[in-house]
């Protein structure tokens, strides 16, 4: 290509020379004239190349090398810009990595978008995940849009052989579960349909973690026996490590083998159901069919299924839970920080573009087009942006795992949060986008001003960019205000929620699940004796003040609600109010330190054979008996329809759902029933879920291990698990708010820092340009104080405008937070009254130094330079 161009031009030149010689010019004169006529060959060649339009790649390289050179000349500027961008883009990339892992990546199962989870829905209770076992079979056999349906529920037990006694978290699963999910087992096989029946030989599939821990990952494990709750199971398979059914499980057993009475109960909703769609069926189609089946069931079994509709959701939604809005909220907040960083760098670049005007003017004179200059500026900003982005990726790599581990509770799919190509692509995209953002203003501005600047002096140039710089400051301040006020809202929320009365004394109380020895679980009498023994031993233990049993502990996962009514006539099912029912021993009141309002709590006299009594809380008393004294009155509980219980006392309400969530929860009435009054058939089931609560004189944590050993029981196989102090549980119920406050606090701090740096930079630059004017003023009699006031006043004006704009944004943000975070209230005046002055003070402080420097200008030397 180049050769041809060279040849063509040479031909032309030679022709022209020949012609001139033929006309009579001397050879060298002819050469000279011919060359003059053609013009500079390089110029011609370049124009030809431009006309062909293939130059852009070479141009890009040239621009790139040039950009690197200029940035190396100003390392300080480059460093500041790159660091600022790295902070902004790094934080944003970390958030995106989390979002990518949790929300965007499909689940680890093959064709995971075909997997659905089913939920029931009633008017009264809303959406629920629970199905009954007969219901599951109905859906499995009748649904045509679902290729296969499987079920699972929680199970578990104490393993005694091989190895030490330990409580295992397990799942009861239907035989088709592994097939539905499509995950191959690590070893062995899944359950066969004939093993999923009552009376079949007990078999189990081990969880991957348990296999590694207890069996050393040995392939010989298949065929061995494991004894759980006294029953031997033959191990037939090992589950894959990534299988998650609401968390990891240690052991899987066939659901169909369970002989519990609730398996036949159509009204017992305790099973999770999931399924796989037929290959060409959409979720909507499946949803329609399921609603039809639900209606059929409702007419067939009105007592249990009336009004119960069916919803199908993608499985990923169930796994992710309610963390989605929080993640997007955080991404939004971190984007604001990135935006501030971009604005900072934009103003830096603009200031530099103006100071480089001579250099740019020369390039224009040498023939660069305006488009070329814009491209050059954008290339330079891209270099900055990509460097910042690369550093940001490094930050992400270092910071992502600490971030995930700090997440309150556990982040769903935390194991999927990793840097992959999508994250890198995102980081690249963000870098380029922000380069564009902050590079555009100077790129467009500077060349346009060039001609004017070549004629006029520097002042006209600065004057036009001053408005842009002020605009930058306003934007930065506004964004900082939004983040600061959001942090303030969260802070106040946390303060308010922390001061809420939990309803009981959280200090120095332990709670732990107790797994009875499998030997006693099946006999109600033995179980009761075991519990008595446990209570005795614990009571006598040094450091323990009082001990009680409870099946449901406040602020911990787990609840049991039961319908109740206070009149002899049972109200229709959707009008029956619900209450949280706790089955406790009499000492519960003193262990938890709940205030007694009226009457008495349960006591030793309340046993089997005596009248069944209950104690209710304030809320229930208010709802059912508004005003009148409930003590002595009857209360009917669902499941005991014919015989009412007698209310013997009223206690204070306990914030069972946690400090943050209790006020908005649906079920707030509470009932306490005595453990000793439980009928025999219920004892084994309840015994498997009972917990012990212990009030100690000394620090509870010192008591845990000794108590654990003490309570091993005669067979050495009674175990404690899920041990927590009530203090921890109460604190944990505010974990999310606290975490968000931390993050928003960091974001707000970053934003404030960046905004102040921006203000400082802009003001320094502008006052430098105004030195002649200031010198003139001083020569005419202005004092240093006047000058300072002048500069500060200008700065103050911009900042106030920024704050004004920011307040609108902050109010909107406050409303958003109210939606997304439990317990938050909107931004009110007091929050603003605290946050705004902080911003104002910081901004004015940032303005102080440039103002002082301006006031120290020596008027004479400054004027001389002009």
């Amino acid at each position, binding site marked *: 290509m180049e050769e041809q161009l060279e040849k063509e031009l040479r*031909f032309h030149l030679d022709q022209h020379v020949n012609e001139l010689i033929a006309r009579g010019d001397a050879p060298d004169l002819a050469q000279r004239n011919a060359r003059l006529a053609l013009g500079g060959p390089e110029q*011609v060649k370049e124009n030809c190349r431009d006309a062909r339009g293939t130059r852009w790649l070479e141009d890009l390289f040239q621009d790139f090398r040039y950009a690197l050179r200029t940035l190396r000349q100003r390392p300080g500027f480059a460093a500041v810009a790159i660091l600022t961008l790295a902070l902004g883009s790094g934080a944003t990339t970390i958030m995106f990595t989390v979002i990518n892992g949790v929300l965007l990546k499909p689940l680890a199962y093959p064709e995971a978008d075909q997997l659905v989870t089913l939920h029931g829905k009633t008017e009264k209770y809303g959406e629920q995940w629970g199905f009954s076992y007969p219901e599951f079979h109905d859906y499995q056999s009748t649904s045509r849009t679902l290729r296969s349906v499987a079920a699972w529920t929680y199970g578990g037990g104490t393993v005694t052989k091989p190895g030490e006694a330990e409580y295992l978290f397990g799942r009861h699963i239907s035989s088709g579960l592994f097939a539905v999910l499509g995950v191959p087992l690590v070893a062995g096989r899944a359950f066969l349909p004939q093993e999923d029946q009552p009376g079949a030989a007990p078999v189990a599939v081990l969880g991957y973690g348990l296999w590694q821990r207890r069996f050393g990952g040995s392939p010989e494990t298949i065929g061995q026996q494991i004894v759980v709750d006294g029953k031997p199971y033959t191990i037939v398979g090992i589950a894959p490590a990534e299988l998650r059914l609401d968390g990891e499980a240690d052991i899987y057993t066939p659901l169909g083998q369970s002989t519990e009475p609730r398996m036949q109960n159509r009204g017992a909703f305790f099973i999770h159901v999931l399924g796989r769609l037929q290959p060409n069926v959409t979720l909507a189609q499946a949803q329609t069919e399921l609603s039809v089946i639900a209606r059929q069931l409702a007419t067939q079994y009105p007592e249990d299924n009336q009004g119960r509709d069916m919803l199908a959701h993608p499985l990923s939604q169930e796994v992710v839970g309610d963390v989605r809005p929080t993640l997007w909220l955080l991404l939004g907040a971190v984007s604001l920080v990135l935006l501030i960083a971009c604005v900072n760098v934009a103003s830096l670049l603009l200031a530099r573009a103006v100071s480089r005007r001579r250099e740019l003017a020369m390039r224009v004179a040498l023939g660069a087009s305006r488009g070329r200059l814009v491209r050059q500026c954008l290339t330079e900003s891209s270099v900055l942006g990509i460097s910042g982005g690369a550093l940001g990726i490094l930050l992400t790599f270092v910071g992502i795992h600490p971030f995930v581990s700090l997440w309150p509770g556990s982040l769903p799919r935390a194991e999927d949060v990793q840097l992959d190509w999508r994250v890198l692509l995102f980081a690249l995209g963000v870098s380029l986008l922000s380069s564009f953002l902050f590079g555009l203003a100077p790129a467009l501005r500077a060349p346009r001003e060039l001609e004017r600047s070549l004629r006029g002096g520097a002042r006209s140039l600065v004057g036009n960019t001053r408005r842009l710089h002020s605009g930058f400051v306003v934007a930065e301040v506004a964004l900082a205000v939004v983040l600061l006020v959001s942090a303030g809202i969260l802070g106040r929320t946390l303060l308010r929620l922390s001061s809420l009365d939990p309803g009981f004394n959280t200090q120095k109380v332990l709670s732990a699940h107790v797994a009875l020895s499998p030997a006693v679980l099946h006999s109600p009498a033995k179980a009761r004796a075991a519990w008595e023994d446990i209570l005795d031993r614990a009571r006598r233990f040094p450091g323990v003040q009082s001990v009680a049993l409870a099946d449901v502990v406040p602020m911990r996962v787990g609840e049991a609600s039961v319908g109740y009514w206070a009149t002899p006539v049972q109200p229709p099912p959707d009008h029956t109010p619900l209450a949280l029912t706790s089955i406790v021993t009499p000492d519960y009141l003193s262990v938890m330190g709940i205030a007694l309002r009226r009457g008495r709590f349960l006591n030793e006299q309340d046993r089997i054979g005596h009248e069944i009594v209950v104690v209710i809380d304030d809320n229930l008393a208010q709802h059912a008996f508004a005003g009148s004294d409930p003590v002595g009155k009857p209360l009917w509980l669902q499941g005991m329809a014919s015989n009412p219980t007698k209310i013997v006392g009223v206690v204070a309400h306990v914030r069972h759902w946690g400090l943050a969530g209790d006020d908005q929860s649906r079920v707030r009435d509470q009932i306490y029933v005595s453990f000793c009054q439980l009928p025999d058939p219920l004892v084994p089931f309840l015994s498997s879920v009972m917990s012990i609560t212990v009030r100690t004189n000394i620090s509870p944590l010192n008591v845990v291990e000794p108590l654990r050993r003490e309570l091993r029981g005669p067979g050495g196989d009674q175990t404690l698990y899920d041990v927590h102090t009530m203090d921890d549980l109460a604190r944990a119920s505010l974990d999310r708010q606290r975490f968000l406050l931390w993050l928003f606090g960091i974001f707000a701090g970053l934003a404030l820092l960046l905004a102040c740096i921006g203000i400082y930079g802009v003001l320094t630059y502008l006052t430098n340009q105004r030195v002649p004017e200031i010198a003139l003023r001083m020569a005419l009699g202005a004092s240093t104080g006047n000058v300072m006031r002048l500069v500060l006043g200008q700065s103050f004006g911009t900042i106030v405008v920024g704050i004004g704009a920011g307040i609108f944004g902050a109010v909107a943000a406050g409303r958003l937070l109210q939606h997304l975070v439990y317990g938050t209230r909107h931004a009110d005046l007091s929050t603003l009254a605290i946050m705004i002055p902080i911003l104002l003070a910081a901004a004015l402080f940032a303005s102080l130094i440039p103002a002082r420097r301006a006031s120290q200008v020596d008027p004479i030397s400054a004027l001389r330079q002009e």
Partner: protein
Amino acid sequence: MAPPKTDLPQGTLDLLILKVVALGPVHGYAIAQRLEQVSRGVVQVPEGSLYPALHRLENRNLLAADWKETETGREAKFYRLTGKGRKQLSTEAASWQRLIDAIALILGMADGGAR
């Protein structure tokens, strides 16, 4: 005495080149010569603009180029008109003619009407 040079209005250079090439395949130097000859010295194309224009037209597929031998035995790049170029030429020539007629009418009007 050389007649005063007239600056070419923008965009007309392309049109003129197309016309010259329409008469037969020709190399760049010959185009410049032809333009000067036919216009009796009025149109003198700055050679620095000629070649970029040629390349531009080639890029737009209005001209096609081959390397051929001239009478003197040297190799030169000869341009010829493509079908697309032919169409472009007639369109542009027509609108140019319309413009000239319009301007002539207006100028005639300023003169006093009779033309």
